[in-house]
């Protein structure tokens, strides 16, 4: 059993032997593919018994959610311990045992805005990989202007009736539940009539349709709600609204800030993980003899290293009280950098990198996918708006 020693060196030794003991060698291969990501959920097909065992071992010790409190299924680690844990995972080439929108988004929202009972019910389902969540934010008519969502939930006494549609709901076709922004007061100003609602994807009237992207297949869906009945309270007495009624925008804003930090930080599954250095070492020397390519590679390396240092510095700042709206910088800088990295990878691989499934795996598909990085979670332009207004204090007129 894992000992949560306070001494960093002891902790590192313990966590490392724990990883060695529970993450089978077959899981520790590179390159990492989509199939190796463990998403969990009722309908998830584990790629191997080893993958399932690794997730379950992590769930038992709470390490699928390292920093969440133990009573809600987490491991209760400190920031420093979590950092050590991630470093050891990387060093041992072990995949993250569980990835999910529950861990990334709903969990943080519940921890901040949920009731104790909501946390007790929903969070352990997430950390054990039992329920897979998806996010219902954007709509065909509400992209950058998210607060204009039109999906509505009408109050029918003891339940809501939900109608409308959501777009860019990642993995909605494989998710068990959705957390969605719905309009619960159509008279109120647009930011004041939205609620953050939890909806069972198995409820009657919910349907999904995958969206094909320029990168080929895609995890994105459109999700439709046709007279979906959502009880105001579960049989257990839990509200299906997180935070206050009509105050869902506060929850959404909090989560968007969180999401920005994550996308900017290159969270697995959202940003590609290929490093430039590994690529260049395998290439024909002639490629970097091209002075233009070489100079792009050097500039990118300078900026990548400085951006990594910035993530470290912002983590240090967060420990001392938070970074607030400046997190928009991480999202902007991180995603724009990632797009540059993949443009360069495509250039250095030349014609070898043009096949959907070729010498460099699915590189073209990864390259095309990065184009969404600076759109999802708030476009680069929205980030610059936030920074100019909230950080630089530039006037609106």
């Amino acid at each position, binding site marked *: 059993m894992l000992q949560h020693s306070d001494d960093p060196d002891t902790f590192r030794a313990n966590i490392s032997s724990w990883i060695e003991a529970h993450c089978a060698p077959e899981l520790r291969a590179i390159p990492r593919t989509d199939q190796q990501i463990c998403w969990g959920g009722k309908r998830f097909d584990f790629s191997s018994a080893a993958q399932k065992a690794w997730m379950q071992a992590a769930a038992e010790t709470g390490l699928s959610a390292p920093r969440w409190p133990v009573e809600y299924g987490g491991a209760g680690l400190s920031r420093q311990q979590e950092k050590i844990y991630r470093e050891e995972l990387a060093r041992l080439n072990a995949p993250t045992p569980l990835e999910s929108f529950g861990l990334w988004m709903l969990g943080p929202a519940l921890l901040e805005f949920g009731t104790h009972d909501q946390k007790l019910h929903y969070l352990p389902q997430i950390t054990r990989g039992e329920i897979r969540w998806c996010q219902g934010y954007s709509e065909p008519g509400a992209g950058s202007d998210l607060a204009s969502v039109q999906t509505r939930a009408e109050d029918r006494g003891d339940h809501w009736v939900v109608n409308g549609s959501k777009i860019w709901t990642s993995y909605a076709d494989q998710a068990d539940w959705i957390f969605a922004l719905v309009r619960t007061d159509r008279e109120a100003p647009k930011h004041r009539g939205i609620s953050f609602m939890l909806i069972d994807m198995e409820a009657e009237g919910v349907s999904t349709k995958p969206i094909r992207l320029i990168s080929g297949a895609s995890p994105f869906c459109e999700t439709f709600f046709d007279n979906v009945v959502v009880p105001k309270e579960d049989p257990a007495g839990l509200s299906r609204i997180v935070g206050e009624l009509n105050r869902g925008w506060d929850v959404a804003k909090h989560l968007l800030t969180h999401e920005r930090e994550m996308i900017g930080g290159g969270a697995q599954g959202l940003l590609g993980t290929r490093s430039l250095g590994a690529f260049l070492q395998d290439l024909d020397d002639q490629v970097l003899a091209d002075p233009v390519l070489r100079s792009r590679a050097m500039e990118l390396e300078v900026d990548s290293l400085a951006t990594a240092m910035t993530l*470290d510095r912002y983590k240090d700042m967060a420990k001392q009280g938070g970074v607030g709206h400046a997190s928009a910088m991480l999202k902007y800088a991180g995603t724009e950098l990632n797009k540059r990295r993949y443009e360069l990878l495509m250039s250095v691989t030349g014609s070898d990198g043009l096949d959907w499934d070729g010498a460099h795996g699915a590189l073209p598909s990864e390259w095309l996918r990065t184009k969404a990085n600076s759109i999802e979670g708030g476009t680069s332009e929205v980030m610059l708006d936030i920074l100019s207004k909230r950080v630089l204090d530039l006037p609106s007129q």
Partner: protein
Amino acid sequence: MTASLVPSGDEVMLRDSARAFLAEASPVSALRANRDGGRPYDPALWSEMVKMGWAGVLLPEEAGGSDMGHRAAGILAEEMGEVLAASPFLSSAVIAATALRAAGSARLAGIAEGATYALALDETSKFAPERAGLQATRAGNGYRLTGRKCFVADGGSADRVLVLARTAGAPGEAEGLTLFDLDANSAGITRTARATVDSRDHANLDFDGVEATGEDVLGEADNAMAVLAPALRAGQAGLSAELLGLTSGAFWMTAAYLRERRQFGRTIGSFQALQHRAAHLWCEIEVTASAVANAGRVLDETPEEADLAVSVAKARATRTAKLAVSEGVQMHGGIGMTDEFDMGFYMKRARVGAEWLGDYGYHAARVAAARGF
């Protein structure tokens, strides 16, 4: 594990006191007065800095220093950059202090007392220490130095000069170089002041059979890099910090102007075209600030691994400063072009800082080499 990239309590105090002092003692108008008065810096300002212990920030206590480290030196340099304060701080308190300390020189304590130094290194228009060809030939028990150094920062005014000379091998080889610590007024040294765009002290130094003894050799003969390399890293990190401060000074001056200037019946800062450029620039500054803080920390903790961190910082600082001053002039419009307005001083210092101790390409190439390509 690297210490936090956020300033410590002591560092915040140092920054605040430096900022308050410089705002009073050396606003940008002081640089203008220096220029108009034809002097490269104000010796009275340097005396004040020495009294406050800034000259000893990298010196051990026994040499009269506070030994606060490179991150602290960077914080001071950053504050000086913010208001373009001119002083021999980088040449003396950072570069020479590090070289003399690495060599265990008996002259170390002089720096804490305010002795000023210049590093005479370049012989061509681009920084390349191993290309040094200035000859130091054996003569009796000592050496005679003959050759020319250009772009010597603080070279016109410094009390002493560190000269990189070739005692063996050929230009291009890192071995065979020797670093001398000489009185800048030694017979045979001719100092020619240059009128560089930043209005600071830069000089060309001609050496005509200048006599040096074995005691003037800093570190070992033929092995200058052992003391020069750490001094260069320290100087490059300090200069990166100065450039970051300069960048921040230019940026916030511009942001204030965007909030105040009205055209077309609106504040120009309300135009999204300008907002986005300003916000982009701020992001670049944040990223560069991380590289600068990291370079100071790595120099303090694992100096032998600092090459990469320092080159990332200098490359980033050079490029971000250029962007900030270019945008600064453009966003100020016509007034940004006038000598009466201060932005031009920022632009000119940024250009000189870009070249000193290695330009963008030099440091980017070092980064690439350290990363295996």
